[in-house]
């Protein structure tokens, strides 16, 4: 029931992910950050098997960092996305990773971009994308309200519409979401949307 979606605005890209870590019927925690900083100007929002998700995204993150150390220049978002897809493709017919990824980045020359990479190593460059059961609702909302060149306020408004739709219509909807944004100033956390805060441990 993991929900990940994202969209591209006029000079930024936004990705949103739910924050529940679930095992069978138990919610381990509801503030799990599933959007990783790939480098200063890239975000990778991942959903899928928790072990694979962390293992694979960290592997990509470290390879991206190694490239920058070795060559003195960062990878473009497109190059990073294609590299990521290649790694999934190579592992696919031996020991596949069950991870779905939305890779958002900002390049000085080409602006913001969003890449959809699914667990079968499908790669699509998109304006808006989503994974999971939540995608039925978020894609429909985005299809209705998205237009290219949205401002941050318009985009966040659309993100909230999607989150509300998921909360009201998905049977086991995740309660909390994290929103991250990437633009010319870099990648950073934008906001949380919480309807259930983790209860603090009772004091002695």
């Amino acid at each position, binding site marked *: 029931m993991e929900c990940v979606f994202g969209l591209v605005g006029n000079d930024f890209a936004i990705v949103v992910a739910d924050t529940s870590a679930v095992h069978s019927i138990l919610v381990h925690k509801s503030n799990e950050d599933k959007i990783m900083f790939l480098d200063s100007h890239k975000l990778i929002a991942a959903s899928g098997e928790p072990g694979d998700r962390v293992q694979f995204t960290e592997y990509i993150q470290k390879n991206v960092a190694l490239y920058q150390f070795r060559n003195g220049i960062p*990878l473009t978002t*497109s190059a990073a996305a*294609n590299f990521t897809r290649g790694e999934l493709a190579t592992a696919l017919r031996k020991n596949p990773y069950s991870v779905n990824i939305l890779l958002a980045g900002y390049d000085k020359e080409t602006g913001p971009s969003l890449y959809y990479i699914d667990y079968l190593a499908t790669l699509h460059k998109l304006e808006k994308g989503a994974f999971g059961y939540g995608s039925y609702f978020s894609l429909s909302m985005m299809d209705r309200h998205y237009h290219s060149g949205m401002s941050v306020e318009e985009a966040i408004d659309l993100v909230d519409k999607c989150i509300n739709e998921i909360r009201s219509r998905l049977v086991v909807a995740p309660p909390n979401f994290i929103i991250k944004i990437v633009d010319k100033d870099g990648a950073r956390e934008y906001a949380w949307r919480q309807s259930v805060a983790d209860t603090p441990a009772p004091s002695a």
Partner: protein
Amino acid sequence: MSRRYDSRTTIFSPEGRLHQVEYAMEAIGNAGSAIGILAKDGVVLVGEKKVTSKLLQTSTSTEKMYKIDDHVACAVAGIMSDANILINTARIQAQRYSFAYQEPMPVEQLVQSLCDTKQGYTQFGGLRPFGVSFLFAGWDKNYGLQLYMSDPSGNYGGWKAGAIGANNQAAQSILKQDYKDDITREEAVQLALKVLSKTMDSTSLTSEKLELAEVFLSPSGKVKYQVCSPENLTKLLVKSGVTQPATDTA
């Protein structure tokens, strides 16, 4: 002296030298020279052809210049069969990169990768080093037009102008005197031909003894690698005053 340290390629001599690497560079010093010049609107590569028999089929193949990828080309000096192996390796590395990243491989990374291969032959495996030096000319979006020189040790450097092969030191010093930072591609061609004419052993320069290639950006923004045809080369040689124009025979 130190003959006992010659036969094993991958050991130091007591003086701290790698003799096999040095001998490889000696071999290149006897080979046909090549000159590269970085101009502000292109990179020029000129090579001296050693094999100039009339019987040689020279339809489309070149002896000194090779295209590695759409945006990188190289000139070679040294043992041709060694060069072919390395050129193939460089081509594979360039394609492997663009397969993984769907982008052309940055020129310096390509040079570095090939030089890492060459270095391996100076440290392990018990195989002799490659007897080839390269001049790489290319364009990428990070640093624009670039020229790199590499030798059998696996060392490489970025240059504004460089020479490899026979008389490369003489050529390099003439280049040092005559090169200007804002040289154009046309001027670079003239300079390269002039330098070669001074350093080559042969008495007269004709288009049969030379190869000329240029790497530059076309107006549409695509990288072009152009080998000069013999007819155009003859015209250029006349223009640069290196050869006398052909006189009509009575």
